[in-house]
């Protein structure tokens, strides 16, 4: 199981031909308390870099971009009732959506855990 990262602070955890997408711990800390999450409809196809979801905190609304191209096969609808899960457990219960990856080579272009941590340190 590999997890890769974007410079926009999304992660994608690869499970077979699909990936779970969420935001990193650093991102949730910067955003502050998340109060609303808007999720895409299942079956939506997204290209790498497209807006896939919207997260709203007490201080800002931000887009969640698709880290890779694919089809949305599942969304975490629990977030609608309890958006705080994004703050409490971003890598676990706070996941946003699951994408079936159409072009696995795109994953290779993303940051590894180490590269991402280096990137965060540079901010």
């Amino acid at each position, binding site marked *: 199981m590999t997890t890769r990262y974007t410079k*926009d*602070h*999304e992660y994608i955890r690869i499970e077979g031909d699909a990936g779970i997408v969420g*935001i990193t711990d650093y*991102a949730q800390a*910067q*955003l*502050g*308390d998340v*109060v*609303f999450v808007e999720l895409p409809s299942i079956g939506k196809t997204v290209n790498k870099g497209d807006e896939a979801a919207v*997260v709203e*905190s*007490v*201080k*800002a609304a*931000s*887009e*969640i*971009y698709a880290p890779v191209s694919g089809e949305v096969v599942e969304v975490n609808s629990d977030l609608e009732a309890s*958006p*705080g899960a994004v703050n409490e457990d971003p890598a676990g219960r706070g996941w946003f959506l699951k994408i079936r990856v159409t072009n696995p080579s795109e994953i290779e272009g993303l940051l590894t855990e180490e590269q991402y941590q280096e990137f965060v340190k540079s901010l």
Partner: protein
Amino acid sequence: MLNRQGRPSAPQAHGVSDPAAGMGDQAARMQGDANTLSTGSAGSHPTFTGNKALAQIEPLLFEIGHTDVTGVDFDEPENFKPRLGGLERKDEIGLPGLSEPEAMRHYVRLSQMNYGIDTGLFPLGSCTMKHNARLNERMARLPGFSDVHPLQPVSTVQGALELMNELGRYLVTLTNMTTVALSPKAGAHGELCGMMAIKAAIEAKGEGKTRNVVLVPDSAHGTNPATAALIGFVVKPVPARDDGWVHVEDVKKLLGPDVAAIMLTNPNTCGLFENQVAEIAKAIHDAGAYFYCDGANFNAIVGKAKPGDLGVDAMHINLHKTFSTPHGGGGPGAGPVVLSARLAPFAPVPFVTLKDGEFTLLEHEDETAEKPFGRMTAFHGQMGMYVRALAYMLSHGSDGMKQASEDAVLNANYIRASLADLFSQPFGDKPCMHEVLFDDTWLKDTGVTTLDFAKAMIDEGYHPMTMYFPLVVHGAMLIEPTESESKASLDLFIATLRDLAMAAKKGDKDRFTGAPYHAPRRRLDETRAARSPVLKWTPPAPIAEAAE
């Protein structure tokens, strides 16, 4: 997906989990919690009513009114047959009834908990809370301006039309533009007007299908990209640079046959004059696009620089900022738009024209050889604001307006220079325009955030500055004193901020994280307010008699 804000959210205020926190003493008592009486500044001298002399506690209208009484006598209607098809109200309406003095006192007491430009210095950056001269108010109340109806025959409102014409002439002259559309009702409405004129011009050239991109710098007001998107443009951001300026080469990189316009604020929201504005205008024009300038900060350059000379094609003017008409809940805005010769033919109806010595309103698109893009408002705009703005202009004169700009810039720089040793400036120690921007670097490791600092300013009797805007700066504090403040007023403000800053650096965290302590209401739990908003008042459960 992250911007560079950095605004804290979870308030560390004491007692946020206490349901009575943030309520006034009396309101808390109504909830059956007498303990809160022992907290607060007057804690050692609790009062029976919860009032503290002139600081009156005022419950909600629903809590003081009674549904079974009313301050107005209406005769019961005789029996009648409703003709609302079954949609008529079946139950009691449930509105609180009050006598006239009760209703009067309620609103007066609420107004005493408010802070306005008539109460004190109002440093809200980007908002230009300048003094609203009483002369303007007197002029606006003249019956020939205040008691006219927009559908009156024009022969009976010649004075009002002449005033609109004169105001338009001043705006066109001050900006060196070709024409003006007076009718937009606020800044964002003016943006929409200007961008619709640009869209009409592009369509008239047959490029409506291909030119659909609008460039907007990262530091722009949020209304800019929203306006462009609203009328179908695709927004492309111009990235921010570390010096706070928009660079012409960054703009050039984004230019192409698909670019319709740039929306640039000048002076920008970082309080800096865009020093490459003329080159940017040229590049935009060379690419066949238009230059929309957000005129929200025009107050810094009135009488000093003319947007028309800088290559601007359209700019809205917030009369309520630049020309001192009331705003911030005090009155409607007004956002006239000045247009260059390239856009003038597309100006919307209605507009005032002079025909055979008589002012008239051109109301219909087919009455002119030009190509108005349509109409923005039902009538002619905010008449009362036109009067106030022109009164400001006439009472200041051209030299006075120029001095107002200079004093606004001087005051902002006085604050900047007086705080530069304690606060951090994101773009280095360089002069600003009418507002000075600090970031939160200087608060690092103090445990105090921009939000905490602003809340502590409330305790000191000041309205906070604009916080966390512009987004390109971390923990932004944007201060705009305006020209209205005297040196004594600025000195007290500066001394207050210095005292607060030194307290923060000394580790007196309590003064900040729990603030405001002295305001009528304590700090709001923003997270709870957003996650579980209470949108409807429900009657409280009856208070248990045994509570005493």
